């Protein structure tokens, strides 16, 4: 079999247009998971300002919160977390063998709810920074 042809990477991600619901769910879940763990590290780092005293803490946090980007990122984080939670629940159901036939629908539903919550949260999250 020395002469056979390996089509390499095109097969994996070059085919993204042909991915099905379950594959997207997997990719999104991965992505959101990594964002969350990344955020956890950052979050603890930010909170560590408390070690330098109460003022430093309050200043750091409020300073950050005053930034438009940070608020925007927070909305993103919320979306990421909500999706990860919802799809996580979906995955837990799948693990228990519940509703396997509706696995694609539940993925779309997760996306929909995530979108809705993210949009709904904008007024709250963006208060005082231009909204």
């Amino acid at each position, binding site marked *: 079999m020395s002469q056979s042809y390996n089509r390499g990477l095109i097969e994996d991600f070059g085919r993204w247009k042909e991915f099905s619901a379950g594959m997207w769910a997997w990719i999104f879940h991965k992505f959101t998971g990594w964002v969350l763990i990344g955020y*956890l590290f950052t979050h603890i780092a930010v909170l560590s300002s408390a070690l330098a005293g109460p003022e430093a803490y309050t200043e750091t*946090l409020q300073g950050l919160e005053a930034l438009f980007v940070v608020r925007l990122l927070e909305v993103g984080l919320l979306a990421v977390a909500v999706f990860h939670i919802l799809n996580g629940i979906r995955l837990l159901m799948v693990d228990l063998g519940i509703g396997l036939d509706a696995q694609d629908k539940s993925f779309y539903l997760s996306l929909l709810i995530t979108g809705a919550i993210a949009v709904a949260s904008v007024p709250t999250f963006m208060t005082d920074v231009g909204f």
Partner: protein
Amino acid sequence: MAERYSSFTPGGTAWLLQRVTAVFLIFALAFHFFLLHFVNHAWEIEFAGTQARMQDLGYFITMILFLITATFHGVNGVYNALINQGLTGTPRKVVLAILVLASLALVGQGIWVAIEMRGGLIL
């Protein structure tokens, strides 16, 4: 055939713990978000408020547990993802070591910060 009755294989344990922690995290994370973004607004956070919450023992313990489970869940998730991508041999051991150290550091740092917020180890 019954020569090897070793209990949990690594794969199985990791898989199960990932799910168990996930169940806990659903509640912890929802609670956390709700409390700090909707009940109290993030931009209004001040040290005093944080301290007040942290002085509640239940809240304090919950947050520590939240930190530990989230760290485990996240790091274990990352590790599994890397293994699924074909990480083996020495690199795998190195990655595991780094991840373990990072999580210990994270959890250690987090607990330290939490104690500080609480205003020392007073129970």
